[in-house]
């Protein structure tokens, strides 16, 4: 259902709620009038009306619920008919109620205006004017039938002394004012509602356009990423053909320069990957946050990293607390952080060294530690490694490829989740990267 259509259903429920208030109001008014102010009122019609209204409300409510569940094609038309029917019925009920409690002498006659306002909010302009005219016909009929004595007048004895119901001058003058007020109220209310609707539609359209534009932009970024990396991969591949001498031997100088190109392409590839990752995160909408099993994520990542580790004969030991399971957050982002830390451990460890991955339950938080016996980080640079593009001094010479963005991205993600990430390290001994994440929001 479009939003405007859902609105009609909401208003239908609103109308039913108002009727409950009206029923309570009738009961209170009756009790005060009869038992506190001691007016004379014939109770029987009042009881019938209250019971009738209760039945009407319960039936309408059930029918609405039924329609909502059944998803009928024409349900909106039916809802509209129900609303119109209810409003007309309310007007008849009001007229009958007034007839049995003083007619034109009952000041509650002003409540017709309420019905007209409510009707104007819920109905279309045409329907509003029709219902208003119907109301005026009803009250006019009641007034003049009583005036001509065709039906009995039930005065509110104790409330008013002068008889107004047979005072023609009074009836005609008040009547004209009543009629003009009614139509004017409908006109004003309709104008307000139409303005409000226009704003609502404009807002919804703007919102939709924004979502479409966002989608286009995201697809654009993805396409560019794919295309840039595609070119880089193709270049790297072609250089490898030369590098690996698949087309024949190279003389030493050829080999030297092919190697230079090869190394630069590798760095460029990683750089582009990291750069686009950080850009994509900044441009994209916040991803969905939900509870996910971080122990499973770790297992999956370790399985994927196994190969790179095996190549260097590095074994990864893991100890994941059995009580570590679900945490709240953006699953893919957290997994990216975990991948980054573990892959770093592999990358910056010399062959034959071990890596340990620990996950511990810390009451309302989870602690993940990645411990390696690699090249370590100089003490004065421990804080700096999380800066964008920063590469520690001992690394720059040894391991050429690395962009310095991995840890910066990880820190950004972790802090967005209200967690913390830090490192302890000793040069040439190894590093321990620690990650503390909240379990709940």
């Amino acid at each position: 259902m479009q939003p405007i259509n859902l609105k009609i259903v909401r208003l239908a429920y609103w109308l039913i709620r108002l009727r409950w208030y009206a029923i309570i109001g009738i009961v209170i008014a009756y009790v005060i009038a009869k038992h506190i102010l001691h007016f004379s009122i014939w109770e029987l019609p009042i009881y019938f009306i209250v019971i009738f209204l209760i039945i009407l409300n319960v039936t309408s409510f059930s029918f609405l619920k039924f329609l909502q569940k059944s998803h009928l094609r024409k349900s909106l038309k039916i809802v509209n008919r129900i609303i119109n029917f209810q409003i007309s019925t309310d007007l008849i009920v009001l007229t009958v109620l007034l007839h049995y409690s003083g007619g034109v002498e009952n000041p509650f006659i002003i409540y017709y205006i309420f019905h007209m306002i409510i009707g104007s909010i819920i109905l279309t302009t045409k329907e509003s004017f029709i219902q208003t005219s119907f109301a005026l016909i009803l009250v006019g009929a009641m007034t003049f039938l009583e005036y001509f004595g065709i039906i009995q007048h039930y005065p509110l004895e104790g409330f008013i002394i002068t008889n107004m119901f047979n005072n023609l001058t009074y009836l005609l003058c008040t009547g004209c004012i009543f009629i003009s007020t009614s139509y004017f109220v409908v006109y004003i209310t309709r104008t307000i509602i139409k303005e409000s609707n226009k704003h609502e539609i404009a807002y919804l359209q703007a919102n939709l356009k924004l979502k479409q534009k966002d989608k286009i932009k995201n697809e654009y970024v993805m396409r560019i990423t794919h295309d840039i990396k595609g070119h880089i991969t193709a270049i790297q591949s072609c250089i490898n053909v030369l590098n690996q001498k698949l087309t024949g031997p190279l003389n030493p100088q050829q080999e030297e320069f092919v190697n230079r190109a090869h190394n630069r392409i590798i760095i460029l590839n990683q750089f582009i990957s990291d750069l686009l990752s950080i850009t994509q995160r900044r441009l994209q909408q916040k991803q969905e946050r939900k509870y996910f099993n971080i122990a499973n994520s770790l297992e999956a990542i370790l399985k994927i990293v196994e190969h790179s580790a095996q190549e260097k004969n590095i074994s990864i030991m893991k100890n994941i607390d059995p009580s570590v399971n679900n945490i709240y957050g953006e699953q893919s982002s957290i997994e990216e952080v975990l991948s980054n830390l573990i892959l770093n451990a592999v990358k910056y460890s010399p062959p034959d060294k071990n890596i340990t991955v620990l996950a511990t339950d810390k009451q309302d938080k989870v602690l993940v530690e990645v411990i390696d016996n690699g090249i370590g980080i100089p003490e004065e640079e421990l804080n700096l490694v999380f800066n964008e593009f920063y590469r520690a001094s001992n690394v720059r010479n040894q391991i050429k490829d690395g962009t310095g963005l991995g840890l910066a991205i990880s820190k950004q993600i972790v802090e967005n989740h209200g967690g913390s990430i830090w490192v302890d390290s000793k040069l040439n001994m190894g590093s321990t990267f620690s990650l503390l994440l909240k379990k709940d929001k």
Partner: protein
Amino acid sequence: MNKSKILVIDDDVDLLASTKLFLESKNYEVNTAINAKIGLSVLKTFHPDLIILDIMMDTNLEGYNFLNDLKSDDILKKIPVIMNTSMAKSIGVNMRSAIEDVDSIPKTRFIDKSGDWEELLIAIKELLQ
């Protein structure tokens, strides 16, 4: 000994050419296709032991759609597939581990498209066992 046969599907002609050269140097018999449609018609006469498949070609999901086409054919679904993509990082670990499930048919592996073929070679060796 019979050479293992590989079908490589990728819309990048340069990558296709260099990969073919590399794989042939490793003693594989290689056939290529530049899109999924041509890939399917090649499969009518060429019966590879392994397919290397690019994911994003003319359309974003061409690779996945091709994988689904394979799955629905009784003979083709037995051929292991390597999903090659430069968007490997964007594909979360979960989707990866779902597709790489030991029990899934065809047996599939995800690798990050890089110009260096080490990861590819490891994956090929694993899937051809």
